[in-house]
Structures are given as structure tokens and as C-alpha cells.
């Protein structure tokens, strides 16, 4: 069976085509195409909904054509067309939903609206083979600790204010770091050169975490190392007397927020009695986070599962995959229902394709 997946809930436009064995058989899934085009904003700026939607509209036809060509399939081979129903930014979601509707009418195909978070989880499970892990979902818009129980992905913990990815992205803007390929990636590279750990707030409440206070504090530190300040007035490490660098701040920020993420994940694992953990979402590409999570999981006699940027970062293939799972479990959507929504909780989806 074949599905086309369209994703555009944030600044990435992703088109994917997946092949599943028919419902009656089990077997590996095949990725026939997984294309992405990213809207990159200038340094110091975030991406606005209006500009992002325009980006998606101007690339979607080209990308769909290219994906179909790469997969070597014709429209009539498809079983369904899957698109991101939410959560995400309104205007970009709409532009992609309209494209999905258009294709469905044109090619006379079933439409399946997919929850973006569930897409990440199902793709992560499929790629890594993690059966029933605790999932840490970390991206620019979401921070959630999730575990599966009775046909739902239940949210155990989440960010109480801004998402961890948003915290990192906004700090990249403070430092005027490039958004190409991604602000978080550039912070990660810079953090590798950091040496000094400074004091930041550490805000964990049970399985929830809060990041806005940390962002405010690290922003204050950044102002104290500004190149506009005379050398003598800049922040120094008290023991060595060395000047604090942007790299030190990136290092400090990562060490602090990742420790919090690992801690809330560990708490959920202890609570449900699981030793597997799967990291999904854009921040999940971060190798330091993966390393820290790995050490924690090992201490609990388990291991960490993570994917690379093809699947961690928003993509179309995860939408095709989760959509096809739903389609095979009997989910159908009327044309009138094929809307999108900025708010769509992970636990709102009935997961009929799992025991």
C-alpha cells in the first residue's frame, strides 16, 4: 500500500511517499521519497506565519512532482493522501491542507489528517524498532514526555511555558547566530567549544519543566559578554579569570536544559517501569542530548533510541507513515472534516493500530 504525506506545520515543507505491506501481512516499510525544503529567516529573526505559508505555497507543487518522480509511481498507485492536521502555525498548516485537498479531489483519493506529534512517534518507532518506549518529543514548538497506554499516547510531562527548542532558537537570536541550517544546530556546534559552566536556574516540577526563566537568565549573561563592553567589564570565570565566551553560554544552556529533559524522562520511566527511551523532534538530533539520555538509560539497564535529521526534523514521510497506519486501521475522513487546527493534543488521537 502507498501513501503520500504532506507536512508544513512550521518552517519546513516536507513531502514523503511510503510503502507498507498490505494490512494482512507484516513486513518492513519502504521509504520511496522523503524531500524537504526549509524556509530560513535571516539571523536575529524568527519565521513569521505569513512568509512561511508563502514559502510552502511556492514550493509544494515542485516538491510533490519531484517526490512522485523519485518514487517512480503514478497518482493512481496511491491509497491515500495524508497531511498534517495540527498542531502548528495556522497559515502554513492551511496552505498545505489546501494542497492536500486539491490533490485528493484531482486524483480521487482518500484524505487522512494526521497529528504531527503522533507522526514523529510512529516514524521514530518504525525506524529504531523501539517497541514500547517512553518518548521524549522535543522541537521548536513542543516539549512532551509521552508513554503509550490503552490506545493513546499519554502526556506525562511537558513544558509549562515555552518549548525547549524555542528556548534554544531564541537564544541563537540573542547571539545573532545564523538560522542556517537551523539555529539549534549552530548552538550545538558552538557549545562543543564551551568550557565553563555558569549558574542558571534549574526548573523541574515533577515531570514538567519550565524554560522561560532560564532563557531570561542566559540572555542577561549574554548582555554581560557583549563585544560592545570594554574588555575589563566583561563577565569572567571567577577561578581562572578567563573571559566568558558565547561558546561557554551555549554550553551552559545546553547542559542545563538537557539535564532537565533527561531528568523528567527518567522520572516517567521510573513511573511506568520502562527502560527504553525514544527521542523524536528537531532537538532530538542533538548528539549531546542523545549522549546524556544514553547514559541515563544505561544506568537503568536500558537504552536510548534516536534517529538522524531525516526523521527527527519535520518531514513528510512521518505523516505518510502515521496516516497509512490509521488508514489501514479503518480510519476514514470526510472531505468536510479535512480541516486543520493549531491546537491538537497528542492524547486526543485514538491509536487504533496498536494493542
Amino acid at each position, binding site marked *: 500500500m502507498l501513501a503520500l504525506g504532506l507536512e508544513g506545520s512550521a518552517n519546513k515543507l516536507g513531502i514523503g511517499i511510503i510503502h507498507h505491506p498490505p494490512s494482512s501481512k507484516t513486513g518492513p516499510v519502504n521509504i520511496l521519497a522523503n524531500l524537504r525544503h526549509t524556509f530560513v529567516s535571516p539571523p536575529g529573526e524568527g519565521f513569521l506565519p505569513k512568509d512561511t505559508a508563502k514559502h510552502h505555497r511556492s514550493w509544494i507543487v515542485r516538491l510533490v512532482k519531484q517526490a512522485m518522480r523519485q518514487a517512480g509511481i503514478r497518482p493512481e498507485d496511491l491509497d491515500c493522501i495524508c497531511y498534517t492536521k495540527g498542531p502548528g502555525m495556522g497559515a502554513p498548516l492551511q496552505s498545505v491542507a489546501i494542497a492536500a485537498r486539491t490533490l485528493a479531489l484531482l486524483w480521487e483519493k482518500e484524505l487522512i489528517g494526521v497529528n504531527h506529534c503522533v507522526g514523529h512517534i510512529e516514524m521514530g518507532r518504525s525506524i529504531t524498532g523501539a517497541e514500547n518506549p517512553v518518548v521524549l518529543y522535543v522541537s521548536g514548538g513542543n516539549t512532551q514526555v509521552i508513554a503509550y497506554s490503552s490506545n493513546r499516547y499519554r502526556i506525562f510531562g511537558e513544558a509549562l511555558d515555552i518549548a525547549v527548542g524555542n528556548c534554544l532558537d531564541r537564544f541563537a537570536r540573542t547571539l545573532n547566530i545564523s538560522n542556517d541550517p537551523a539555529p539549534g544546530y549552530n548552538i550545538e556546534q558552538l557549545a562543543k567549544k564551551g568550557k565553563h*559552566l555558569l549558574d542558571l536556574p534549574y526548573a523541574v516540577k515533577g515531570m514538567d519543566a519550565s524554560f522561560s526563566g532560564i532563557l531570561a537568565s542566559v540572555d542577561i549573561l549574554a548582555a554581560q559578554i557583549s563585544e560592545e563592553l570594554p574588555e575589563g567589564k566583561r563577565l569572567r570565570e571567577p577561578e581562572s579569570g578567563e573571559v566568558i565566551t558565547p561558546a561557554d553560554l551555549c554550553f551552559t544552556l545546553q547542559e542545563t536544559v538537557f*539535564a532537565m529533559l533527561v531528568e523528567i524522562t527518567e522520572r516517567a520511566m521510573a513511573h511506568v517501569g520502562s527502560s527504553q527511551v525514544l527521542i523524536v523532534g528537531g532537538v532530538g538530533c542533538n548528539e549531546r542530548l542523545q549522549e546524556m539520555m544514553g547514559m541515563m538509560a544505561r544506568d537503568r539497564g536500558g537504552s536510548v533510541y534516536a534517529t538522524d535529521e531525516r526523521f527527527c526534523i519535520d518531514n513528510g514521510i512521518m505523516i505518510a507513515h502515521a496516516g497509512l497506519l490509521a488508514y489501514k486501521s479503518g480510519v476514514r475522513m470526510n472531505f468536510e472534516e479535512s480541516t486543520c487546527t493549531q491546537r491538537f493534543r497528542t492524547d486526543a488521537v485514538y491509536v487504533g493500530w496498536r494493542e
Partner: protein
Amino acid sequence: MSQAWLVLHTLPAPFFTSSTPLMPITQGAEALLFKTSLITTDTPAALKYRPPKPYRHPILDKKLTKQRILAEARVLVKCAREGVPVPRVLAVGWEEGWVGVEWIRGGTLRGALNEWESKRMGTYIGKSAHEDGGEEAEEAEEAVKDLMSRIGIAVGRLHQAGVVHGDLTTSNIMLRPTTQSPSGESQEHEQSNGSLKDEVVLIDFGLAAQSVQDEDRAVDLYVLERAFGATHPKAEPFFGDLLRAYGDSFKGAKVVVKRLEEVRLRGRKKSMIG
């Protein structure tokens, strides 16, 4: 349960040379738990050891461990003084990362609810023809509702004492057999599932803080509510009983319950933005 963690850690001083036997009990969310005796050989105690976390930067790790051990000990002392049902503190080693507290017989609320939920499934699926099935189930449901109220009162007493827990889950609430309750005669040493009728004891104060803010109190309730929703979907409908009892438990508690609505709304909003 696998005890792989045992071989991965050495005990803190002074316990690695101690002649008192240490019985490994469990690996919690961040600590390792042993049963031993402290002060006198017949005072059973829970030794809670927070080993260094290799994933954390050592500076951060030391700071957090010390902070939490001290917070836990201080808050437990305060709670005991104010009549909140918690284990007594027996000894603390904050540099080494351990605290010794009174041993609580019984088991966690999580265990008791799991047992109740699986039994309930049993009456519905397996024994639906059984005559007493319905009555038994009803009785158990009453017991759960009553238990929920008693949890509400315990949390109310905690908040009234000026403390917020910071990690209220069903793993951090224990049920201790009272002399009257049915599980009272059960084995001293066994860590069993508590019975729904047992006494509520709050544990695990590593993330606790002193606060009388409505917001902090409401977040405590929110964390607990979500713990129910995520792990005990069948008990969640009775969360209202908990909130009602909490609301009546001290002056100002009703304001907290109102505040909870705001916290919920905020939670729902932000987690749905992509």
C-alpha cells in the same frame, strides 16, 4: 524487577562498610532505595541514596544532589511537626547524598490502583456472570472514592503547612496498613501493594519547596491530576472527589482549586502549538 542497577553503583559512606544488612528495594525516579535499620537495630529504615548522575555536569550534579537531600530532610521535619502524614527523618548525609527515613510498611498507591484496575477488568470481562461481581466492584469503587478524598485531605494538610511537593505522582504516595485495615497483619518486610483502605503517607520530597502561593499549590494538583490521567485512566473520574476534599481541607483551598482551572487551560494551550 530487574536489579541491574545494583551492580552499577557502590554504596555511599558510611554504608559500604556497615555491618547492618542493606536490602535493595527499588530504583526510584532518581534514587536507589534500601531497607536497613538506623539508630537502633530494630528501627526499620528506608535509606534513600542519590548516586552521582553521570549524564549531568559534575558541578550541576553536586549542587542538585545536595540541594535536594537538604530540601527533603528539612521539609520532612517541618511536615512531621505540622502533622502531615510523612515518614520521620532519622539521619542525613548531604555530602554523600543520602537520607535515612522511617520505613513505611505497605506499598505505593500506584501498585494499589493497578491491582484495582486489573481486578475491575476481571469482573467485566472474565467474571461477568459471577453474581457478587457487581457488588464487589461497587464496594471497591466506593473504597477508591474514599481513598481519593483522603489523599485530598493529606495534600491539603501539606499545603496548609506551607509546603508544595513538586512531584506528586501515585508512586510518591504510599498506603500504610493501619491496625484495623485488612492488610494490617501482612508480612512486615514485604513490599506489597497497599490496600485501598490503608492510611495515606506522602513520600519523596526531593523537589519540595516552601511556598504558600496559590499558583505553586495549583501546579502541585495539576501534576497529580495528570499522573492519574496518564497512568490510571480508570481512577481519573474520581479525581473530583480528591479535589472536593482538598477544597474543604483548609481556608484558601477553594481558591487553589479555582486556580487549577487556569493552570489546566494554560497547559492545554501551549502543548498544542506545533
